[in-house]
């Protein structure tokens, strides 16, 4: 494995990405939006004006977690905000889709893939380079967004218990661990799609399906079907890690230089 070549691919990808306004805006605005929504929720559902019995309307599991530390209003606030904090799990899935879906099929349509494949770069080096080029901005944007949210939460909320319930080990695990793992999943899924279709738009549309499971988690928590906990996050991390390893292997196996060069028109 030649890390210089991987670095070169990353440099090349970034040089291209940072000239593409669509991708730049998705890297900037998506995390900003996903950061703004929970902050707005936090500001909207301040303790005042929420009845103490509000937690009786919450899913039983959640109300039980609130326990005696949080008042009914604060518990409701934490519930509402944390439901939208799941957005931080969408960011690392969504951002790389734009980058990765374009990465193979875009090279093909602009006819840059053949000279690239004619160089002594291995498929693994090429795909790892493209992977990292898409994963790193997504992860950094997610972490930065969460950092802004944390700072905003300290400024907006007056209740230290609420802050403690929002910026807790579970969410740190979700952002620090699940974030990069989700980004890797998203990138490799997009790569696989990207190396099988001929049109960057089709690649993007199919790749965007990877967000659906997280949307499912969001809906599930909103409707009280289940509740994200620290142990659930850890289990999810292990599962996503295994899926990632499988997808990385699969994307390298499915990247058939010959088919890509000779069958794509």
């Amino acid at each position, binding site marked *: 494995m*030649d890390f*210089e*070549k991987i670095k*070169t691919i990353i*440099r*090349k990808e970034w*040089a*291209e990405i940072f*000239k*593409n306004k669509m991708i730049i805006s998705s890297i900037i605005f998506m995390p900003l939006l996903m950061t703004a929504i929970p902050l707005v929720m936090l500001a909207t559902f301040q303790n005042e004006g929420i009845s103490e019995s509000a937690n009786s309307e919450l899913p039983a599991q959640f109300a039980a977690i609130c326990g005696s530390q949080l008042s009914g209003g604060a518990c409701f606030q934490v519930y509402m905000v944390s439901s939208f904090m799941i957005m931080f799990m969408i960011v690392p899935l969504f951002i790389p889709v734009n980058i990765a879906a374009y990465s193979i099929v875009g090279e093909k349509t*602009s*006819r*840059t*893939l*053949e*000279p*690239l*494949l*004619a*160089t*002594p*770069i*291995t498929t693994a080096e090429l795909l790892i380079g493209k992977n990292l080029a898409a994963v790193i901005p997504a992860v950094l944007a997610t972490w930065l967004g969460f950092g802004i949210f944390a700072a905003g939460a300290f400024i907006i909320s007056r209740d230290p218990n609420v802050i403690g319930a929002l910026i807790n080990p579970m969410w740190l695990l979700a952002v620090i661990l699940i974030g990069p793992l989700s980004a890797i999943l998203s990138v490799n899924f997009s790569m696989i799609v990207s190396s099988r279709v001929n049109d960057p738009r089709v690649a993007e549309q199919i790749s965007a399906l990877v967000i659906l499971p997280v949307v499912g988690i969001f809906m599930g928590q909103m409707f009280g079907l289940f509740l994200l906990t620290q142990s659930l996050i850890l289990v999810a991390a292990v599962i996503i890690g295994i899926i990632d390893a499988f997808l990385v292997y699969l994307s390298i196996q499915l990247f058939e*230089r*010959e088919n890509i*060069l*000779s*069958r794509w028109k």
Partner: protein
Amino acid sequence: MIQTENLTKKFVTKETTTVAVENLNLEVAEGEVFGFLGPNGAGKTTTVRMLTSLIGPTSGKAVVNGFTTGKDDQEIRRCVGILTETPGMYDNLSAEFNLEIYARLYEVKDVKGQVEKYLRMLGLWERRQDEAGTFSKGMKQKLAIARAMLHEPRIMFLDEPTSGLDPEAARLVRDFIAELRTQGRTIFLCTHNLDEADRLCDRVGVFKSRLLVVDTPANLRSQIFGRKVVFHLRSATPEMAAQVQALPFVREARAVESKLVVTLEDPETYNPQIIQLLVNSGAEIQFVGELRHSLEDVYLQFIRKAAA
């Protein structure tokens, strides 16, 4: 330098099997400029892709610079340069950055130095900071040639290097190929520009899924048409033609207007005898020249024969 042995490539789909290259047996020597001629869709690009380890053969084998395709693919990619059919540059990156990327991927030691050398050599140094997308087709092609040269390959595969270029740009590219030839590099030139092949190539192969013929352009001409010498006279008569035709080494002699067109094997040896005969018979010779059939005529003969 390049050897193929029954090299075959078939593209199989559910409905059809297309034989792009069939039992190609070829040898290209070190330092040779080899022209690979054929119509569109003949399988030239597929052959180049196999020889540069971009795709694998269905059967047969190819050895490039001592490395076998399918086995030593990375080594082959390291030692060959390829100019693909389309330049394929990253349009929104600068010319210099485009080359830097490839220099690093080709494991070039002095990246900056090599990039500068070829940008200057191809007259692009002043435009190095401009995006490749702003370049004309000819400039992009020059940039693609620079890319193929960065790692100083001993073998170059050039796929239609002057296709779509204006005459000036085409001339520049041809001059550059001639320059490469003087450096002793082996060049495998795919083209359907027969004039270009005639000027640049030591040998040419006519190819349409299979190799129809390989030889020097001069030998191919002579094989098909023989060699023709035109004697421009003040006036040519059928009697003079008959006298020349009677010579044992002459294949054919015809009087056409004031010219006598003679077909023979070895004009360098026999022309003096013909001139002597014509002078003795009272002909006034104004000048003598060789009638050269174009490589296009030769090529079309082989392609038509193959089609028949």
